[in-house]
């Protein structure tokens, strides 16, 4: 049956759009867990006001959390910027403008990815005495 259906020329590979569509779904499902985990951590188990330097430093002592956050960063950025690309494709008709905006999206992706990655890798906490308060604000 299949050989009959595909008797003609074979498809020209999946193509980028196919990949993009697939990627949305896979990265999305992973993100569900990562993002919800992340906001639970920063809003429920700890109040935002207490996600201070000391909180981060304690957490990043364990490389697992660095990896966790890096995954969140990478998946979120690629997923989100890919979404931005699609939106630009949908609404910007002028070819040059579209190219420019998509270029900008690519640059944003690169810049934020680098910035985030560098921060995650290079972060090494200063002396614990200088970590500052456990929480900020008046609570």
């Amino acid at each position: 049956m299949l050989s009959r259906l595909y008797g003609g020329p074979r498809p020209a590979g999946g193509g980028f759009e196919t990949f993009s569509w697939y990627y949305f779904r896979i990265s999305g499902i992973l993100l569900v867990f990562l993002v919800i985990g992340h906001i639970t951590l920063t809003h429920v188990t700890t109040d935002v006001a207490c996600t201070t330097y000391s909180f981060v430093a304690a957490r990043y002592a364990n490389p697992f959390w660095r990896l966790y956050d890096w995954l969140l960063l990478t998946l979120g950025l690629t997923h989100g910027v890919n979404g931005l690309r699609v939106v630009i494709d949908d609404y910007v008709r002028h070819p040059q403008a579209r190219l420019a905006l998509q270029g900008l999206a690519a640059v944003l992706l690169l810049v934020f990815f680098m910035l985030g990655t560098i921060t995650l890798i290079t972060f090494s906490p200063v002396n614990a005495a200088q970590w500052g308060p456990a929480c900020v604000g008046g609570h």
Partner: protein
Amino acid sequence: MKVEVRIKRYDPERDQKPYWSTFEVDVEPIDRLLDTLNKIKWTMDGTLTYRRSCAHGICGSDAMRINGRNRLACKVLMRDVGSRVTVEPMLGYPVIKDLVVDMDQFFEKYKSVKPYLITYDTEPGTERLQSPEERERFDEGTKCILCGACTGSCPSIWGNPDWVGPASIVNAHRFIFDSRDQGAAERLSILGRKDGVWRCRTIFNCTDACPRGIPVTDLIEQVKRAIVFNDTKNA
């Protein structure tokens, strides 16, 4: 009963920009909206322009935006539209005049998905065999009358006129899943491109708009799966 009909008008020959005309018409509750338009054209304003032919929902001429949704004017009854009805040309197509839109692009896209039987075998002396189940597999798509209501209802096309649109996919589906056809791979590769099926963001307006009750989004999703899994059997 008396009805107020608001119609969006535009004649590029005379008008700078579109405007609204309002007509007070006396109608029967079981009149079709098409009858009402005819009444306006024949007795009130001869310049009102729209397409129509069969008058019973089979030729696909008179798809238009009626109270904000794409419908065939010949399938909408006056008793169902309320005492004020707003009629506009479909979105997503260039307007030629009043309710008449340019369908050339629509048909070009339709043609681009190779909507015809592709076979490489020699024809038998009598009919090709096909089981009733194989025939049933692609039945929905064969109902399409190419009215364009689905494509014009899709927000993706409002922003991006290059998108191939739901109607073309429905018609590609009709052949991709026909057991006699051998062109599935060609069509899937066309539909897998940038302006192919992936522009569909499962908005479902098309399914709401289709006057033939075709589950348009469902068929599109089947084509997506056929591409992703490179397989038409389990899609």
